[in-house]
């Protein structure tokens, strides 16, 4: 099985190729994005700090990502709980429909939201982007929280009620602590998705661009590319940090529940 392992490592190199190249060009002292590299510089990061429009886009993106993460995780909690703890008519159809944006081409989601919003007289803004992002993040949140709820023995909640707690205090004392790692993971993942999402933001942000939309605009100017590389490096590092944190919480959740680790998020 040596060959398979070599293949797996080659594949990992293929997967990581773009994000390995990114910092190379971000610190490269040359305006052209090509080999050979010229020399080390921090100019592009300094340039980033001086760009006003970028700061606005960053503020927009962070506001959108935080709001999206909170709303999508709330929806995720509701849906995951309903799916794991109750049976109700039309369950499969309802949950399937809520999960639909996971497989729907994003352009369809973006275009239809844009058309519908213009029809009811809403103009594109940060809030319309949030609306779209919540829609596409909710399925991810449900997938993560499904894991948390499925790992939790149903009789734990019954035991708490049996020992005198009300449904509300049971949620606070038993359910929440056990699902908390999943909630944190969901918040972080939704934040990451929203922060990186481009197409919906492209269609729905109007004149309040998010970071990716700003980035897209800059791709047209060859002279700006090194700065974009610097920005990209920061974004990628941020994403990886968020992911590692999310993974840490997910594993902690498993340990707390005294369970074996069986895989990743999806």
């Amino acid at each position, binding site marked *: 099985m040596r060959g398979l392992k070599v293949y797996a490592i080659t594949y990992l190199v293929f997967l990581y190729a773009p994000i390995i190249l990114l910092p190379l060009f971000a610190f490269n002292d040359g305006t052209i994005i090509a080999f050979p590299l010229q020399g080390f510089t921090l100019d592009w990061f300094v340039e980033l700090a001086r760009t006003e429009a970028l700061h606005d886009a960053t503020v927009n993106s962070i506001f959108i990502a935080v709001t999206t993460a909170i709303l999508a995780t709330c929806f995720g909690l509701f849906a995951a709980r309903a799916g794991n703890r109750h049976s109700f008519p039309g369950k499969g159809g309802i949950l399937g429909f809520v999960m639909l944006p996971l497989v729907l081409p994003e352009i369809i989601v973006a275009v239809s939201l844009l058309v519908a919003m213009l029809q009811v007289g809403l103009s594109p803004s940060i809030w319309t982007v949030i609306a779209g992002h919540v829609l596409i993040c909710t399925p991810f949140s449900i997938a993560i929280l499904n894991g948390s709820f499925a790992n939790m023995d149903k*009789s734990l909640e*019954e*035991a*708490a009620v*049996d*020992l*005198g707690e009300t449904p509300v205090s049971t949620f606070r004392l038993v359910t929440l602590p056990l699902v908390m790692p999943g909630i944190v993971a969901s918040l972080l993942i939704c934040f990451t998705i929203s922060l990186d999402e481009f197409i919906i933001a492209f269609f729905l942000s109007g004149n309040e661009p998010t970071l990716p939309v700003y980035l897209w605009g800059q791709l047209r100017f060859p002279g700006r590319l090194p700065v974009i590389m610097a920005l990209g490096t920061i974004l990628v590092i941020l994403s990886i940090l968020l992911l590692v944190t999310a993974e840490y919480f997910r594993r902690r959740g498993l340990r*707390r*529940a*005294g369970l074996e680790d069986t895989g990743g998020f999806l």
Partner: protein
Amino acid sequence: MRGPIITLEGVQKYYGEYHALRGIDAEIGQGEFFSLLGPSGCGKTTLLRAIAGFEDISGGRILLDGRDMDGVPPNRRPTNMVFQSYAIFPHLSVAENVGFGLRKSPMSGAEKKTAVGEALEMVGLGGYGGRAAHALSGGQRQRVALARALILKPKVLLLDEPLSALDKKMREQMQTELRRLQRQVGITFILVTHDQEEALIMSDRIAVMFEGGIAQLAPPQDLYRRPASRKVGEFIGMMNFLPARLIEAGNPSVEVEVPGLGRAILEPDQCPMGTGGEISIGLRPESMTLLFDGQNAERVAQGVVEERTYYGDMTYYDIRLDGAPNIVQVSMRNMPGRRVLDRGDRADLAWDARAMVLFC
């Protein structure tokens, strides 16, 4: 049995079309060890959960200490439960688990601590309070679950298949221990189990349930010696069923003819239902004896050993009776100097009409 702590009156439960409980009537006494015994799907767990308040019943009443429990949520009922999975909170320590239900009690912190210590002591886990709950073994979890429920001094302790997750040795140990604990605290225990042996060992009275109804409610000895129906007899222990012919339905006793054995006169308590139709008699393997070398008995039948199964302490024989199509199973304790018969050997079989039950 002192006065009833639980009264079940025509308890019904539907899941959609499915009739899970078909009118359960029973009284469970104060301080009684009561078992609900039956195969899976018979409704025993549903009934237990209805008493705990986790299932709304569709009809009838559940009275707990004289109070109608309709609409009373589980947290307000004077019952506590030991769950099949034990439901030990994995994010809390052993002591926090045991003290979980004391959160709203008026006890001071120090008193609670003492109570938790005592409860752990009682189940043999003194000094385990600081341990993480998910690091416990199955038997220890079970003890924590018991301590956690008993610390609240419930009027009734409900146990949902509490021993099914344990291995055989641990199970046998916990059976005696549960029984001892129940005598010590004097609380009514209701045990759900599908293991007839476990029910016989532990209970004061057993309700055998089939298909949502109670088939028989009796103390262990009565249940074993005088099953109320063929189904109960089949479910509990082993029993031979032999077709029989009614000779005379006298008052009060009944005379029947059993092909291969002969005639027998049965007392009324041996005839649970007298509705006519096909009749058969039930006879436990150990209530018959093989006769060896000149032993004699009042009523003897003859036959041939068809099959023999050796268990170490016991040997089970399948014996085909002369002049009848019937095969009866007989168990014999293996004793020094007692032969073990082989297949094909002839055998003399002593039987006693007092051990028979008549089913129609």
